[in-house]
């Protein structure tokens, strides 16, 4: 891990400002933030190296939680240790917190109207299409062997037909199954390249 030269190292207020800006303008969050972060931290400011970026993306995908918060924690840590990590995370959390507070308080007043509910019914159908497409895309990437196919089908069936089973339990058991079965090593190599 390469530590930036001290002259390149950001001060906490600047770090806060950049993460705050990224969180406030990026719609969709998660991995859509990566190109924006690359522009801010690599090209414009040189606070991080290309290698930092690649490492961060790899690590973020094996950690639980919200991707944007996780990226902020790891990048913030690399740029300014623990104070950097917490500053960056706070900066990412604040903009959506306030914008959603405003939206949530307005939304209750309009949601009763018939035209609004017709609009939202249609929007829900479109969300359904978006989730389906992302599931298909994810499926094409993951379902290349019998084990992942079996786990995906089982998780699907359990969630649809046995609503009394907790989704978190499904995830935990699947993790245990992976631990027992073990990931094929060549696939791991393939992912890195």
């Amino acid at each position, binding site marked *: 891990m390469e530590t930036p030269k001290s002259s390149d190292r950001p001060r906490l207020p600047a770090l806060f400002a950049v993460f705050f800006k990224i969180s406030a303008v990026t719609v969709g969050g998660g991995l859509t933030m990566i190109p924006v972060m690359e522009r801010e931290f690599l090209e414009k400011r040189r606070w991080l190296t290309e290698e930092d970026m690649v490492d961060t993306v790899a690590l973020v995908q094996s950690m639980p939680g919200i*991707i944007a918060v996780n990226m902020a924690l790891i990048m913030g840590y690399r740029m300014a240790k623990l104070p950097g990590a917490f500053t960056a995370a706070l900066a990412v959390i604040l903009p959506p917190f306030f914008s959603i507070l405003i939206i949530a308080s307005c939304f209750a007043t309009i949601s009763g109207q018939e035209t609004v509910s017709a609009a939202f019914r249609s929007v829900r159908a479109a969300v359904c299409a978006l989730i389906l497409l992302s599931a298909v895309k994810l499926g094409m990437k993951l379902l290349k062997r019998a084990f992942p196919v079996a786990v995906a089908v089982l998780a699907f069936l359990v969630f*649809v037909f046995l609503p009394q089973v907790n989704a978190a339990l499904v995830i935990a058991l699947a993790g245990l199954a992976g631990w027992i079965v073990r990931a094929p090593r060549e696939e791991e190599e393939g992912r890195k390249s």
Partner: protein
Amino acid sequence: MNVFTLYLLFAKIGLFTFGGGYAMIPLFQDELVVRHAFISPEEFANMVALAQITPGPVGLNAATYIGYRQMGLAGALAGTLGVATPSLILVTLAAVFFLAFRRNRRIQDILYGIRPATLGLIAAAVIFFAESSIFTSELKGLWSSSVPGPGIFWPSVSAFLIALIVNAGRKKAGPVLTLLGAAILGVFLHLIL
């Protein structure tokens, strides 16, 4: 239910979400809609749509929104801090001990099980969203004789298909345009039909 229990509930969701964004939806749905009935399926689906077109990470937006609807400002704080807490602990540890985490095979094994399970749950969430938009009742009616079979809501089918088409190709419309377009289509069809 008090603010602390709400906080723990969101922390549990944050802990079992791998992959961010859509991966969080089935867990939210399981805990908040099915198990605790905090919000109706329709409002949940609307909220997921709003979370995608407002700036900020989808998971944070959703947690803030649901927390606010449940217990006002305190609930919004509990939701936001709840989903972020597992990240703050685990990801910070991972950032500090980065090298130990990056090549850990056991973590890769566990994820080998968790990733397809998450996919299965996301696929199941598609059905759930379809029930609150395209169909007029739950799909249970198809296999359970005690529940009447669902009808189809045609204006939503058109929104679903259009959303699918404009996002399936190489050039995608993206969530913001898709969902705004769907809202306009919904209002238009509502007014002329």
